[in-house]
């Protein structure tokens, strides 16, 4: 059995450094770099001894600390540039302060979370005359739809496809009427369509069956003609009459 332990208190190297600063009451603007580096490495060492996974961020920080330490050991150049020379710790201090700020703010958020958790909204709304909207309005405007929603919707639509591969027959609300519409629609752009073309994009048996019924129904209503030049040749479906719709072919 393998145990994965996460030391609870240190969310990352900055968190650990802040812990040292607080524990030893260090001046954050004047961190004793040698001492804190030593403590930091010791902590990593303990983690290693405990066989804990050490996040790469800790290793990176360890090397940063050692670099700073080395820089600080270098004799200061007594040149006119001295004034502009930056404290090697400056960048680290800045990061620590920044992180500290948000860490403290998160406590504030935690308090707000508790407070807001005491408030409850109405959750059951039946019988509030919701049925007043008409179906037409259903597809409205975008609002509160973000790119994330869009992307998730895209992903979801493909997940649906995957599912269908496993369940070849799945009940769907295919209506003969809808397919009749679809077929007539297709015939607007092409007066004559091979039978197979009508079913080409359909991957579900049920839909093909529905489409087939639709063609028969259209034929019965004399809205399409079904022709075949020879036995076993392609069967064609064509419009039974040309309306102004044939303009589409010209486009």
């Amino acid at each position, binding site marked *: 059995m393998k145990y994965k332990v996460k030391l609870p208190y240190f969310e990352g190297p900055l968190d650990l450094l802040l812990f040292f600063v607080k524990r030893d009451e260090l001046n954050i603007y004047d961190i004793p770099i040698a001492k804190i580096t030593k403590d930091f490495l010791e902590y990593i060492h303990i983690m290693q001894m405990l066989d804990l996974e050490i996040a790469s961020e800790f290793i990176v920080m360890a090397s940063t600390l050692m670099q700073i330490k080395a820089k600080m050991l270098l004799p200061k150049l007594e040149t006119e540039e001295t004034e502009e020379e930056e404290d090697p710790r400056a960048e680290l201090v800045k990061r620590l302060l920044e992180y500290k700020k948000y860490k403290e703010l998160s406590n504030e958020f935690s308090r707000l979370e508790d407070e807001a958790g005491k408030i409850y909204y109405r*959750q059951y709304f039946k019988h509030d005359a919701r049925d007043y909207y008409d179906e037409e309005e259903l597809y409205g405007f975008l609002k509160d739809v973000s790119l994330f929603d869009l992307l998730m919707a895209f992903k979801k639509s493909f997940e649906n496809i995957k599912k269908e591969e496993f369940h070849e027959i799945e009940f769907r609300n295919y209506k003969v009427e809808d397919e009749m519409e679809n077929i007539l629609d297709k015939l607007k752009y092409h007066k004559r369509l091979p039978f197979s073309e009508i079913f080409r994009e359909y991957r579900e048996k049920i839909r093909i069956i529905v489409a087939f019924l639709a063609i028969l129904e259209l034929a019965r209503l004399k809205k399409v003609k079904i022709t075949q030049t020879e036995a076993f040749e392609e069967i064609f479906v064509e419009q039974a009459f040309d309306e102004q719709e044939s303009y589409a072919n010209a486009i």
Partner: protein
Amino acid sequence: MENLKSIVEAIIFASDTPLSLKQIKDIINEPQKKLKPNGDSKTITEEDIRKIIATLNQEYSERGSAFKIIEIAEGYQFATLPEFAKWVGKLFKEKNKKKLSQPALETLAIIAYKQPISKPEIEAIRGVNVDHIIKTLLEKRLITIVGRAETLGRPLLYGTTKEFLKYFGLKDLSELPKPSEIEEITKENENSSFENGVIQNDGEK
């Protein structure tokens, strides 16, 4: 009693299902001494609660309130009065008007990522007829006709519009988030969020 009345009011108000007298009674009587209403040591009966609800409704009516507690088969719940139905109806109509439906959103997403794309291709992905949705998206100027496919029937091809980009704050289509980018974030399964301590169950306080 005053205190108890407000408690009953709060419970019915916030419940996500209609509540029976028994359910309300049980919540109030639950043996947790510190939760008992001030100095009230006897248990509450269903009849008490029925009376409290009647009192509340009496108060609402006196105040000319737009809502009251109604009793339906499953129990008690708040509802707005029927005379406000037309206003409430307008509210939901407004809300629905402003919302892109899930089917429309999925269709828009497919067009955005696969454009130019024809209706048959969209239908092949979504598995349903999208005539009506395409029409609406066209009307809203979120998509437009960008040409015709070379395939048989030469179906119209759809693509997204400038308005679409503007709404989502994109400069051009190359800025759409890539499925792989989110994949990076979402590839881990649900369990991992617990391992990583994102959600904490702080249990009973």
